[in-house]
């Protein structure tokens, strides 16, 4: 096995444009990191229960649950964090107010508080992730080797993580401020890596490039670029450039098809196959150009294959294996 890509990182934040497979990558990453007897937690913060669907388990409560066994005997745990529950936790830890908190919740007041101050919501969610990560500092029995946070999409990621700026309008002093400082001491440190999931298409690549710039500007640690759903070119480089120039050897294709006994239909089939070859070459060309843009971001780029059968638990193992081979462990 090659060297590990992110030594010393125990909080992996995964973001990406909608539709790029952010949750799938987060789950596969948690699986890869759990390999060989390790214990990881994948956390979800947007209430969509995507993790439960991927691991094929019932909807997750606000409670850490074991969802899968990793290759070599590791364990993947999962947690769906809800801002209301996180606020109750917070009230209990800082004010010992759990019961009053529950009463307020029944009144709908907790929902009100997190609505009135959206920054509060984010601090509570990132705060929960940091609480779990910091368990290992205290050698707690329920500590994890790594925590993977399935975070909001790229458009909101910097704001979501930059909790200091978020609460600055909220509170300049006091407990929530201290809480935000504590969160920042984890998120902006070398123990965190913010990964971005993308496809080799113009819009997601542009969003990735923008997000990397924003994260660096905010001095947040950029981890890897995960290129999802990649397809291997079906033609050789020579054939691809022939196709791009409209010079595929039509008569050779024609003869080969005739030898297969396609008979009358050969002309139409030749035309279709040639056109598909050209489309494919254009697509590969576009993907390579987009890849170059990602490659210039000075962050490790990892590739995950397109799985034509869709995503289920077994494909998570496959994707985790791909990540392991590329240095995730």
């Amino acid at each position, binding site marked *: 096995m090659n060297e590990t890509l992110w030594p010393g990182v125990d909080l992996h934040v995964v973001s990406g444009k909608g539709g790029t497979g952010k949750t799938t990558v987060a789950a596969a990453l948690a699986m890869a990191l759990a390999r060989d007897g390790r214990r990881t937690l994948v956390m979800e913060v947007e209430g969509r229960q995507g993790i439960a669907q991927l691991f094929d388990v019932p909807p997750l409560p606000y409670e850490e649950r074991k969802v899968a066994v990793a290759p070599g005997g590791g364990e993947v745990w999962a947690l769906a964090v809800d801002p209301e529950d996180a606020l109750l936790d917070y009230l209990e830890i800082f004010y010992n107010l759990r019961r009053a908190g529950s009463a307020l919740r029944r009144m709908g007041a907790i929902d009100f*508080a997190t609505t009135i101050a959206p920054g509060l919501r984010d601090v509570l969610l990132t705060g929960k992730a940091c609480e779990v990560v910091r368990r290992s500092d205290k050698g707690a029995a329920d500590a994890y080797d790594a925590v993977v946070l399935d975070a909001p999409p790229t458009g909101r990621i910097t704001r979501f993580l930059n909790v200091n700026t978020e609460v600055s309008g909220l509170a300049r002093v006091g407990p929530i401020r201290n809480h935000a400082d504590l969160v920042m001491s984890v998120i902006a440190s070398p123990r965190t890596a913010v990964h971005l999931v993308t496809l080799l298409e113009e819009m997601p690549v542009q969003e990735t490039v923008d997000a990397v710039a924003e994260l660096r500007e905010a001095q947040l640690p950029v981890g890897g670029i995960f290129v999802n759903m990649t397809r291997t070119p079906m033609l050789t480089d020579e054939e691809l450039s022939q196709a791009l120039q409209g010079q595929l050897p039509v008569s050779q*294709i024609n003869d080969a098809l005739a030898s297969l006994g396609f008979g009358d239909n050969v002309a139409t089939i030749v035309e279709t196959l040639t056109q598909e070859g050209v489309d494919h070459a254009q697509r590969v060309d576009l993907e390579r150009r987009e890849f170059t843009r990602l490659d210039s971001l000075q962050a490790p780029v990892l590739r995950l294959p397109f799985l034509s059968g869709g995503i289920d638990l077994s494909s998570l193992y496959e994707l985790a294996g791909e990540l392991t081979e590329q240095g995730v462990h």
Partner: protein
Amino acid sequence: MQSPHLHVDDLLDDDNVSILVCTGAGGVGKTTTAAALAFRAAERGRHVCVLTIDPARRLAQAMGLTELDNSPREVPGIDGDGSLYAMMLDMKRTFDEVVEAHADPARAEQILANPFYQALSSSFAGTQEYMAMEKLSQLHSDADAPWDLIIVDTPPSRSALDFLDAPARLGSFLDGRFIRILTAPARGAGRGLGRLAAAGFGLFTGILSKILGAQVLADVGTFVAAIDTTFGGFRERADATFALLQQPSTAFLVVATPESDALREASYFVERLQQEKMPLGGLIVNRVQDVDQELMTADSAAASAEKLEETSGAGNLTGRLLELHAGRLRIRERQHHLTERFTRAHPGVATAQVPALAQDVHDLAGLREVGELLALARET
């Protein structure tokens, strides 16, 4: 099972339709679809205004949306007698304008300077949806406006349903009882509270002050007191636009891709529209694998490729092209299977399937091409 064919041109040409709403999960191509439909409608002679929410840079440039002034600008280069106006939503500015339109200058200034208002108008979950609705209703009620058709793109939220729910949620939050409680001391409205409720109220404000700081609560209180006297409830405004969307002059187009998540989201939305008695125009499935399914099956293509490899050895171009073809057929089959599930659950919904584009739209010619694909789109 076949679903009825969605005839996009019929919808665009129908003078009785004055609002088209494009909705769907994030990342399915809503904005591009909205822009392409607007462009096509304009070139078919209608006077169109397209309200986009968060267009990609190049698409915005293609429509000449380089200046952000929160009002529609005419897009040059439309063939024929129609016209196209385009704008990008600036949610903070829209909110500011609502305040300015309803309050006298002194009070408006007071509201705009309030820290809670600033947070509410720029970063609140739901504000974007609320302001999209607000802008739509402004564009619609503008009697002097040159357009007779408004096409709206919806905000890129996690769930398509947010577009319908967020405004009411934000409205009832702003008109809700906790907000009333916070402002109660200032208005004497808390007097009616019983002793128990008063105790709960004390606990409530006490804890909120602890978490958020007393200043935040004070800001919320002043803000609500200030807006309360200037214009009617937020909820009523949201309700009015909601009712507009129930008119037969509105049509919703639900946009999806042939993937299970996007189609599931489309299903939820279609069911919700039926429940709300909102008019559904149809389903647009973007990024469908384009392949001729008549020539051979995926299996026979793969078998032929294998046979060629046996006879002519590996490294055979024709064999690889056949494999490529087989792969496309298999993707198409899977997509067909997924869209069919949707069709079976919603048999009456008119559907248009649009082939995947080779690249993103960069200019008006690109928009025209997408419009043609939408109009030519085949049924399932």
